[in-house]
């Protein structure tokens, strides 16, 4: 039997994890090598699967009896259609880049492993198990493996956010991430169960067949929205987004992989995979509006952050909102193509930000500036990523974002133009906040302490590859190229759907808005970086209240704390008090009524138990001293033995007598 590459793709990183996890002390820094090699093999396999899919071959693999659930025997199946094979490419390539980059990043100072980060070996184990879980999730043809991968990714994310767990901020952030996404996970579980209740199956193909026989309203829409609740947690949609900015406490390469490119896009992938649940008007509208609102909301907060990673985190939330809105507006191709391009440029931006942090030892942009001179390669790559994110042609982000704007534009008749308006505004803000970052960090004079280091080449290499991937995917996103209508990527992801061509009006508006954002940022920030007084900004003076609110993330964290977290712990304390005072109180009362029995037991304990203990000690002592003593005899001892014997004889005689 030939082993399918599909099973090998997630299995190889998992084996690397299995080899690393129990033996970190044995492997030491070599875990980096092991994990990276595993990732390299997986990447090659993923590319081969992608190429075969381009050639028209859809691979599948299945194992029939994983679990017999009584009603249904659950098989474990994998498949690689267009959607999956694109996801495979994203996950493996970004993960490989992050692995290589991390070798440099997690090595403070010394030339590779000279002065490694504490727990360095564990770090690569976490990366490996994460990648494995994500690959298994996108390959799965059933919802159980999707859910399993989903949860294991959550664990990896928790461990990586809390990687420096001796810092309270990191510990709190990891807890917040785990529990916030858990709320979404439970919603997802209920959704999966509801689908099972309808179809008696966990297989996506069977559920799809069922969904297509119905109008998609009623219970099916409820199931869809429950599943979307899971996606909201993982993909950080408003109001379950609060964990993602805090997740930046983790090592930056991990943020780049998990909290920018791949895991946070899992929710988007899930909505795309189960898109048949979101075609009815109600779920479609809900999804579109939540996505578009999240995009605008997060973009506006990103404007007012000083921490470079937080800007990127809110940018990620905003871009995930785009993807979700695109899916809601009916275009799987648009949402997933944006996921694809975004993964590369956002991973690049995070890595570049990581290179900056690695060099200046702070996240605060107020203490940066002028880095253009110290790290030219990083500057150039950051600029490429920024242009892609801002949606400037010919970078990939323009084409994918345009598809989404077009989808919401076209959906305007059925669900209103508001989503398109919100997304277009967000596009302007995106260009604005990204160039704010560019000016604050790279232009003017250096405002920080010490002398910034040059970026090591092991970190620049992967960034260079990702930089190239900010442009290359544009080729498959150009409408009309290698496709009659729409672009090649859309046909690859959604072969049977109808795709729209370029809409010049929508495209020009998006370019205009983006260029406007850039120019505005230049007008405000360039003079300030030159003068060196960046804290006296533009908005702080004109709209101080709004600025403070944006700086404090519009107080959503506080609101959630007040509305959910505190009541939950109050309920727990209350129930515990009830348990102690009322339930146990009644028990103790009953106990006091029976105090006589207790007294007897205590007496029994004192006299008989200790008596027995002493007795057994005594018997052993006597027996140990041998036959010499047995003639003298002790009546009680004999009596005790005789009693036991007698009991045994009676019981056994009853048992074995032929009568």
């Amino acid at each position, binding site marked *: 039997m030939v082993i399918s590459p599909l099973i090998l793709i997630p299995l190889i990183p998992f084996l690397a994890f299995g080899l690393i996890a129990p033996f970190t002390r044995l492997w030491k820094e070599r875990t980096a090598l092991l994990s990276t090699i595993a990732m390299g093999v997986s990447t090659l396999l993923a590319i081969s699967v992608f190429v075969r899919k381009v050639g028209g071959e859809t691979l599948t693999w299945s194992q029939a009896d994983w679990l017999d659930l*009584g009603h249904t025997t659950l098989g474990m199946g994998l498949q690689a259609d267009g959607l999956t094979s694109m996801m495979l490419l994203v996950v493996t390539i970004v993960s490989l880049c992050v692995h290589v980059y991390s070798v440099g990043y997690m090595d403070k100072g010394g030339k590779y492993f000279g002065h490694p980060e504490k727990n360095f070996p564990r770090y690569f184990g976490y990366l490996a198990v994460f990648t494995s879980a994500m690959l298994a999730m996108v390959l799965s043809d059933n919802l159980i493996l999707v859910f399993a991968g989903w949860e294991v990714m959550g664990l990896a994310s928790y461990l990586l956010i809390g990687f420096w767990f*001796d810092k309270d901020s990191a510990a709190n952030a990891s807890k917040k991430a*785990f529990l916030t996404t858990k709320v979404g996970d439970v919603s997802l579980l209920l959704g999966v169960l509801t689908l099972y209740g309808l179809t008696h199956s966990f297989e996506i193909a069977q559920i799809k067949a069922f969904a297509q026989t119905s109008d998609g309203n009623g219970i099916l829409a409820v199931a869809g929205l429950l599943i979307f609740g899971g996606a909201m947690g993982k993909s950080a949609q408003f109001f379950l987004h609060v964990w993602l900015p805090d997740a930046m406490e983790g090592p930056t390469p991990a943020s780049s992989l998990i909290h920018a490119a791949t895991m946070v896009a899992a929710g988007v992938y899930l909505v795309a995979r189960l898109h048949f649940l979101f075609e009815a008007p109600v779920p479609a509208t809900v999804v579109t509006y939540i996505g578009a609102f999240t995009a605008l909301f997060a973009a506006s907060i990103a404007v007012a952050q000083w921490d470079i990673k937080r800007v990127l985190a809110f940018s990620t939330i905003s871009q995930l909102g785009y993807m979700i809105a695109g899916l809601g507006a009916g275009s799987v191709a648009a949402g997933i193509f944006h996921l694809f391009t975004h993964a590369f440029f956002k991973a690049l931006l995070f890595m570049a930000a990581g290179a900056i942090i690695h060099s200046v030892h702070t996240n605060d942009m107020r203490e940066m500036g002028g880095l253009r001179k110290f790290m030219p390669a990083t500057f150039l790559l950051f600029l490429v990523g920024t242009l892609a994110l801002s949606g400037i042609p010919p970078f990939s982000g323009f084409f994918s974002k345009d598809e989404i704007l077009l989808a919401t534009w076209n959906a305007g008749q059925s669900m209103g133009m508001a989503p398109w308006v919100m997304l277009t505004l967000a596009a302007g803000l995106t260009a604005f906040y990204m160039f704010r970052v560019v000016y604050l960090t790279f232009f003017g004079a250096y405002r920080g302490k010490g002398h910034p280091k040059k970026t090591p080449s092991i970190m620049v290499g992967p960034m260079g590859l990702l930089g190239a991937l900010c442009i290359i995917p544009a080729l498959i996103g150009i409408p009309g190229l290698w496709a009659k209508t729409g672009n090649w990527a859309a046909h690859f992801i959604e072969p049977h759907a109808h795709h729209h061509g370029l809409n010049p009006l929508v495209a020009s508006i998006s370019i205009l808005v983006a260029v406007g954002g850039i120019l505005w940022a230049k007008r405000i920030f360039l003079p300030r970086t030159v003068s060196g007084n960046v804290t006296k900004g533009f908005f702080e003076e004109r709209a101080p209240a709004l600025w403070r609110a944006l700086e404090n993330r519009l107080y959503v964290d506080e609101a959630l704390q007040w509305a959910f977290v505190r009541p939950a712990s109050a309920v727990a304390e209350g129930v515990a008090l009830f348990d102690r005072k009322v339930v146990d109180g009644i028990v103790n009362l009953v106990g006091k009524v029976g105090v006589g029995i207790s007294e007897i037991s205590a007496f029994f304990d004192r006299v008989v138990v200790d008596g027995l203990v002493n007795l057994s000690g005594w018997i052993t002592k006597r027996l*140990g001293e041998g036959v010499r003593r047995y003639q003298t005899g002790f009546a009680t001892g004999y009596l005790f033995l005789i009693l036991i014997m007698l009991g045994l004889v009676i019981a056994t005689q009853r048992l*074995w007598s032929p009568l």
Partner: protein
Amino acid sequence: MLTEFIRFVVHPLHVLIFLPLVGAGFIAFIKHEKRIRQVAIGTTVATFLASLWVWKVFVSAPADNYGFRLNYGVPWFKELGVAWYTGIDGISLALILLTTVVSISAAISSRSIDSKLRMYYILFLLLITSLLGVLVARDYFLFFVFWELMLLPMYFLIGIWGGKRRIYASIKFFLYTLVGSVLLLIAILALHWSAPEIGFGISQLAEKGATLPIKGAGLATQTTLFLLFFFGFGVKVPIVPFHTWLPDAHVQAPTPISMMLAAVLLKMGTYGFVRILLPTVPGAFHDLSGIAVPLVATVGVVSMLYGALVAMAQKDWKSMVAYSSISHMGYLVFALATNTELGLSAAMFIMISHGLISACMFHLVGVIYERTHNRNLLAYGGLGALLPGYFTIWIFVGMANLGLPGLSGFWGEFMTFVAAFSNHHWMVTSGLFAGMNFFRVLSAFGVITIVVTAAYMILMIQRIFMGPLNEKWADLKDMTKTEKWTIIPLMALILLFGIWPQGLVSLYAETTRALATNLGFLIAGS
């Protein structure tokens, strides 16, 4: 008589249940402390090997009408209709294996015991005999003898080797479970007197029970028997609100006894549900207008959520783990109420999985308690960097407890909810709530438990391991090799059943399938 005696003794089940007793007999005459420990551990290993032998013989042995194998029956107290009647099916087999596996770990973990060793190990081994005895008994009298025999060593093990409030805890345990036993006794006698000619055979009386009227006057109705058995066994499970003996018993009990208590003793109550309650009063469960299904399901979900919430508020580490047990037993009770084969299977899965996980958790709490004599969750902090091995193992076990897929804890919970969603009784067919029913609404409350469970486990990990190091513990040493290897086999099983659930399910699937068929539970999807 001699041939009967030999036949009796060499029967695999009797070898199994009396091996610990033989070991205890040896220990009574050993002087060296070290040798006592060796013999005790050796005895648990031998018992484990015996259970493997039983498993091997079981697989190829023929089954009787009731699906039991390796049966042995002789009249005992004839005038009363009592017989020595033993035998096992897949359900008992799975629990026997759990008992023997966990008892090795508990015996090794007993290194922390340092006073009155001989007595301790004798009682410990006696406890194992009584547990195994309950699992092989097919006669109510024999069952009840072993059932009561469990109490005795447990009472002394907590009362002599326990913590500061051990007397209070042990008496509470004793009295509480005694009340449960009284209910059981009434039920057994009522059942017996409804057909004295049948005697005390559990399976035989179950057949009789199934023919009893569901409601009516007198004790011998299915509803009354249901209530007696449900609360009688429920105290042992324990179900809310009869649970408060458990946290006290756990907090006061020495570590290895907590392991046995959580891993195996609690399962005796749920074993009673599966072995006795369900088969004896199937009508009570079928009659959906009756009290049984709503009561059991509600008690299950309340126990789940209530136990988890109280666990979240605990400051005592062991107490938190104890409430976690109550919560997980709630899943099991809910699973049984779903009237599905899958629910039965889920209940079995939870028994084994929770047995393994809770034993690990109590061992782990004990490891630190032995060093610091402090169980206050707020007294630690930052141990993660100091004790990396211990931290890693806790993450593994904690994740298993909160139901991470890939570890065994997940499947029990998952199967429970799937079972709930596959029961279509009382379905609302139109209007806003179309597609909802009693089980689904309860499940919607039940899944909140998953979040609360994650919350208390993650909170615990943060409090103990994360943040800056509490300098008070700067000299703390990481787990020793022995401490690690005590539970590594259990962890391996948690992982194995997490990745390959069928491996566990296939142990008992035939039995649960037959039971579900007899009970008329939902088997094939509809």
